[in-house]
């Protein structure tokens, strides 16, 4: 999957947008700070993934589920992230459910659909091939 080292980098433009959105208006971010934050984000993903994977392995499961990730946050002392995160997960599940309903009821639900839900479910589709059981587990 990851053939080149660049494959493990996150796009700088996206990182910059997230960083600028978090800072007060008019704050500048040096180029070096941007690349540093991008690198930190990649390492953070690996750190959380491997911690969550250890938690899953301990409960003799092969695949990581959402709860493992939340536990990993606790273990790594990032529990302060859990509150905003759980709101996103709730939203994500709601969207996934809506999408399921839409697929089963066909055209009827098209009118409830909005652009936002569509884009997010599209990206979900791309990666959903692995396993869908995770959602029930969590």
């Amino acid at each position: 999957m990851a053939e080149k080292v660049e494959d493990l980098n996150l796009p700088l433009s996206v990182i910059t947008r997230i960083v600028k959105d978090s800072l007060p208006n008019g704050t500048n971010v040096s180029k070096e700070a941007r690349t540093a934050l991008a690198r930190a984000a990649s390492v953070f993903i690996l750190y959380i993934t491997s911690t969550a994977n250890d938690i899953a392995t301990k409960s003799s499961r092969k695949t990581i589920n959402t709860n493992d990730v939340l536990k990993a946050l606790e273990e790594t002392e990032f529990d302060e992230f859990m509150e905003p995160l759980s709101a996103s997960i709730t939203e994500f599940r709601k969207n996934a459910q809506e999408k399921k309903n839409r697929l089963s009821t066909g055209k009827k639900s098209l009118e409830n659909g909005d652009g936002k839900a569509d884009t997010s479910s599209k990206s979900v589709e791309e990666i959903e091939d692995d396993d869908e059981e995770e959602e029930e587990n969590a």
Partner: protein
Amino acid sequence: MVQLTNISDKENVNMSGKNIGDASSKLPLSRVKTIMKSSPNVDSIGAEVIFTVSKCTEIFLQFMSLGGLKRCNSQKLLDYKGIAELVNTDDKLNFLSEVLPRKMTFREAKKLLQTPDDDDASESSDEA
């Protein structure tokens, strides 16, 4: 700016001014997945887990930016120094200390190398 998009987004905007609580990922999920899979012994990952980690990383970036800016000399510019300072003062960011070390001048590094009793410091200045 998100406020006008749709009704289902409303509560998220209330939760945090930076629309952190929404269901769309700003980071590319396929890339997040690639990074996750590069971790040893991780084979298949569910879509929800990828989304969760991606969102988590967004919050992490927010945390790093705000914390880094606090440690900058100027509150108008987030620079590397502020981020390195944050990494090396917050214990839970220890995992980043080798990735984002404090910078030092050559003079400082040389001085550290010349004090043989401080093993840790001379080692890290070697790497830097």
